[in-house]
């Protein structure tokens, strides 16, 4: 399989804390790649560095062989890398539909002049944006909440909306930061179906998750972070048996339970 995302030697320091130390990984086209680790292991920091939210101290990130620009989050989106957030960050005072329409921004072009003059091209594009956004809302299963403000959606629906908004940017790589956090069992099951559907549609997925069962069931490969270092990377069955991983989660001396 060819490699889509390659991160080499990523390091990040906060004050005296080494949040990430020389983390490298590659994600192949079409796979679901899991990133797990105990609380504070650096998972979200790694996400934030990948998506350009934090500046990295060292290391390289490339998507499809092209280096991702630093300090230009919108360029990372244009390159085909989208993400959701652990703590949901929607545009709370915009409708579900508008949230997704914002995601179409970089894939469309009409400017102020077209909008003022209401040219045919501008109107056609606006309609296309709206249609695509409606499709995406249906795709993630909240087609009936189109005109509700984002903040009025239920927690599970807000998560779905975040995914729809990320999909609107036409990502090749979609990074999901703890999408199942706070979800009940049926919501998690629905999320799992959704993620499998995304993969079937050709989107590569990077998944950070606390729910180890979900990760082990879904992912093709899993990497484990602990204290900012990658301690394992393998297929789920191997990772599950890896002594270093068990130690990281359960502490020294407890052994395989």
């Amino acid at each position, binding site marked *: 399989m060819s490699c889509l995302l390659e991160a080499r030697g990523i390091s990040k320091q906060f004050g005296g804390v080494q949040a990430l130390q020389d983390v490298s990984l590659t994600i192949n086209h079409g796979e679901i790649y899991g990133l797990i680790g105990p609380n504070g292991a650096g998972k979200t920091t790694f996400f934030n560095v990948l998506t350009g939210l934090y500046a990295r101290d060292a290391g390289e990130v490339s998507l499809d062989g092209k280096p991702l620009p630093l300090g230009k989050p919108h360029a990372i*989106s244009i390159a085909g890398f989208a993400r959701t957030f652990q703590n949901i960050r929607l545009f709370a005072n915009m409708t579900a539909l508008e949230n997704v*329409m*914002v995601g179409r921004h970089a894939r469309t072009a009409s400017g102020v002049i077209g909008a003022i003059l209401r040219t045919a091209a501008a109107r056609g594009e606006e309609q296309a944006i709206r249609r695509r956004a409606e499709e995406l809302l249906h795709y993630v299963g909240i087609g009936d909440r189109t005109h509700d403000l984002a903040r009025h959606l239920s927690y599970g629906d807000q998560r779905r909306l975040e995914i729809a908004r990320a999909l609107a940017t036409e990502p090749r790589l979609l990074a999901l930061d703890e999408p199942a956090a706070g979800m009940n069992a049926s919501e998690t099951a629905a999320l799992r179906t959704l993620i499998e559907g995304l993969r079937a549609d050709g989107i590569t997925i990077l998944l950070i998750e606390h729910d180890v069962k979900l990760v082990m069931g879904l992912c093709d490969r899993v990497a484990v972070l602990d204290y900012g270092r990658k301690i394992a990377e393998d297929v789920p069955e191997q990772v599950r048996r890896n002594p270093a991983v068990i130690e990281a989660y359960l502490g020294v001396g407890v052994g395989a339970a």
Partner: protein
Amino acid sequence: METFIQQLFNGLTVGSIYALVALGYTMVYGILGLINFAHGDVVMIGAMVALSVTRPLVGVLPGPLVLLIGLVVAAVTCMLLGFTIERVAYRPLRKAPRLAPLITAIGISIVLQQLAMIIWGRGYHPVPTLLPGGMHDLLGAQINDLQLLIIATAAVTMVALMLLVNRTRLGRAMRATAENPEIAALMGVNINRVISATFVIGSALAALAGVMVSSHYGIAHYSMGFMLGLKAFTAAVLGGIGNLGGAMLGGILLGVIEALGAGYIGDLTGGVFGSNYQDVFAFIVLIVVLVFRPSGLMGERVSERA
């Protein structure tokens, strides 16, 4: 009663101008959390540029056409000015503590005023009348063409702005950036462009307001933007700063309150205070709002920014 209607229309005229300027304050505040104290001086530059362009044309071309030319040149100049101010003075301070850009804004305000004083001098410039001064009798009040034009133009402009913000791709990007610039950027919005566009649009409104206010009072002066800016800022706070509808409502309300206050203060105080105290009302309103409803008429409680 006649005084009331007359002052109501005078208030609506001035209030429409306040509203246009208040929109510039509120749009920038909504997106950057910055109170752009230089905005009033952009209005002044608009008025001065329009004056310089129109004066040699008076009598050469028909009045309304001269007015239009003046307006277009003023708008383009102010748009460039707004773009440059953001680029040079505010963008480098995007991540600085809030006080830094605020002080910079005051600095820019002083720079613009001094620059205008150097270019146009310290004197009061009479502004030529470019419209046929037809008076209309409306419910016992006297309204001239210019006032009607100001009110109508402001109304159309504000409707257009609302459509732009609520119905277009750029407007969506502006609202998304206002809610959360980091996330908007991650969704592919080039927030620097959106912020530039905000300044450019606000400055165009300022130019329009500058032409209106100088035509209405028939006078232009290098420091005219200061008091106008303060009042428009008050209007924005009254409506709920960051809220476009609030800026419009606040501007018009403030204009009407001020006009009615000026119209009646003489009678109410037995002649002790005259209409020259009209500026007091704006600041009474500001104080009352800040004490009793700091989030403004249409503003929501200030929410934390992530």
